[in-house]
């Protein structure tokens, strides 16, 4: 299935420029709080792109992705604490555990369609959160702390925020490359076929469960790596910080807000969402606990009503309607609709 030249030179240049900008940006910022803010954006973007693989391309909306995030965080942390395993290997282990979990949970859950699948993912994430909270082995609600005596690249513990910035930027780049490769590969076509016309895909010989499981596994692996990163950065995890429902919603919302099923939509969504979140935090202070949920809810409503194809869809609509914006042929924008 050829699809024109492998890389569109203009797009490639744009991506490289964006990357170069992202690489230089932290050097211009000395305030650690500002830098931390950028790290939060990159984290949200990375998870949104990962979510998009199953939620966007394959159209299987998961509202329980915190479970993979938490698995990543807990696996790398536990392996580090009990076996002294390097977090770099712990990342991969966390991803592997998340894949196994995705396969075990996806097998029954993918028998459900649309909204029922989304509901099942919420239930699974809630159950895991409760189990971990009550697990003595995982220190329950007390949480796990990383030892403070080790630092440096081998332990992936740094005093400055700067290394974290480059690590998460690297992880985001890897995640985007994986999504890009899927988008262009045969598997990407199967995902879109399953999303648009599941029965027709099945009638042509595509096993729906198999490809949905592939989508979920890849997404889970990458999300778990995000979780491991979070654990290394914060050096403390508990069920409330890595398994909470709000994380699941945030991951999905980043992608939905930016543009479901588009490569860089989730990155844009992350920039918008995290910015709003940070400003609301300074605005309402600690009195506003729960404001983030109110904001999420408001954004979901706004996106659903005004632009089901996300901000990216809105932008391309605008460009089409502006004079001189190019009379590009209207493409079927189905790609970007939220379709649980």
């Amino acid at each position, binding site marked *: *299935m050829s*699809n024109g030249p492998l890389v569109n030179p203009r797009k490639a240049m744009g991506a490289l420029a964006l990357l170069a900008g992202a690489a230089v940006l932290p050097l211009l910022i000395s305030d650690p709080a500002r830098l931390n803010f950028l790290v939060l954006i990159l984290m949200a973007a990375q998870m949104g792109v990962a979510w998009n693989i199953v939620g966007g391309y394959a159209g299987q909306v998961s509202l329980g992705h915190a479970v993979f995030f938490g698995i990543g965080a807990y696996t790398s942390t536990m392996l580090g604490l009990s076996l002294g395993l390097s977090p770099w290997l712990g990342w991969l282990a966390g991803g592997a555990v998340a894949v196994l979990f995705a396969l075990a949970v996806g097998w029954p859950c993918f028998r459900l369609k649309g909204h029922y699948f989304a509901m099942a993912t919420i239930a699974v994430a809630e159950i895991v959160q409760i189990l971990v909270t009550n697990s003595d082995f995982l220190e329950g609600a007390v949480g796990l702390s990383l030892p403070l005596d080790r630092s440096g690249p081998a332990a992936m513990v740094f005093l400055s925020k700067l290394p974290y910035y480059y690590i998460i930027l690297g992880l985001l780049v890897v995640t985007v490359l994986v999504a890009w490769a899927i988008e262009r590969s045969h598997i990407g076509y199967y995902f879109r076929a399953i999303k*648009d*016309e599941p029965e*027709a895909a*099945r*009638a042509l010989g595509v096993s729906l469960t198999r490809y949905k499981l592939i989508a979920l596994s890849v997404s889970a692996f990458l999300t778990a790596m995000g979780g491991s990163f979070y654990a290394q950065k914060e050096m403390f995890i508990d069920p409330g910080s890595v398994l909470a429902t709000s994380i699941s919603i945030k991951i999905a919302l980043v992608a939905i807000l930016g543009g479901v099923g588009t490569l860089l939509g989730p990155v844009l969504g992350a920039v918008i969402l995290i910015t709003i979140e940070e400003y609301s935090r300074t605005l309402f202070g600690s009195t506003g606990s729960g404001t983030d949920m109110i904001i999420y809810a408001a954004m979901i409503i706004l996106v659903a009503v005004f632009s089901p194809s996300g901000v990216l869809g809105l932008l391309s609509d605008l460009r089409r309607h502006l004079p001189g914006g190019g009379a590009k*042929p209207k*493409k*079927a924008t189905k790609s970007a609709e939220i379709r649980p």
Partner: protein
Amino acid sequence: MLDVRNIQSSYRRVPAIRDVSLNIKKGEIVAIVGGNGNGKSTTLRAIAGLNALDGGAISLKGRDLASVPAHDRVKHGLVLVPEGRRLFPRLTVEQNLMLGAFATSDAHKRQETLQYSYDTFTVLGERRRQQAGTLSGGEQQMLAMCRGLMSQPDLLMLDEPSWGVAPKLVTRIFETIHTIRERGITILLVEQNVHRALEIADRGYVIQTGRVVMEGSGKDLLGNDEVRQAYLGM
């Protein structure tokens, strides 16, 4: 080729077919005709494995299909071109065709069928890089049929191929069905356009309220008074 014995199947828990038996020999064109909501489509969907059986048995080339899931039936040589075409609108014409070849590994035959599709319907070749959703109804039907052929089927099942197709193109569609048979492919056809269907069919079955009520050669059924009265308005 295909042997369907006393199958029953439900659509959303409502029994849609109560007792359907039919058999198709290699190289035949067989039509299932009848009014709307009498179980024609459900019959095809049951054969394709998209609807579960409540009773009865289906065998293809002597092999019982009970334990074969829908997506594996394609490998056994059976493919359904569903009602309303069900193309992948955001994929290009060529990508749609290549998805049809999902179940085959024979690259040479795949290329040959692709070329056949483009030769038979030049418009598909011209628009191979265009999104399938932008084609006209008739073009979409041609694409859907070609997509089905890409799996190298022995048995091609067509559900309402004239649906949503401009009258001018309907003739073209039925001509194509004829030429597909000449490629050695057996055809099972469901149509509301009873006249056209029975004209090209070697044999036909009339289904009413989920049961086969009549069968015979296409010509005999076309000449049958009951059929003429009920479906042809004569």
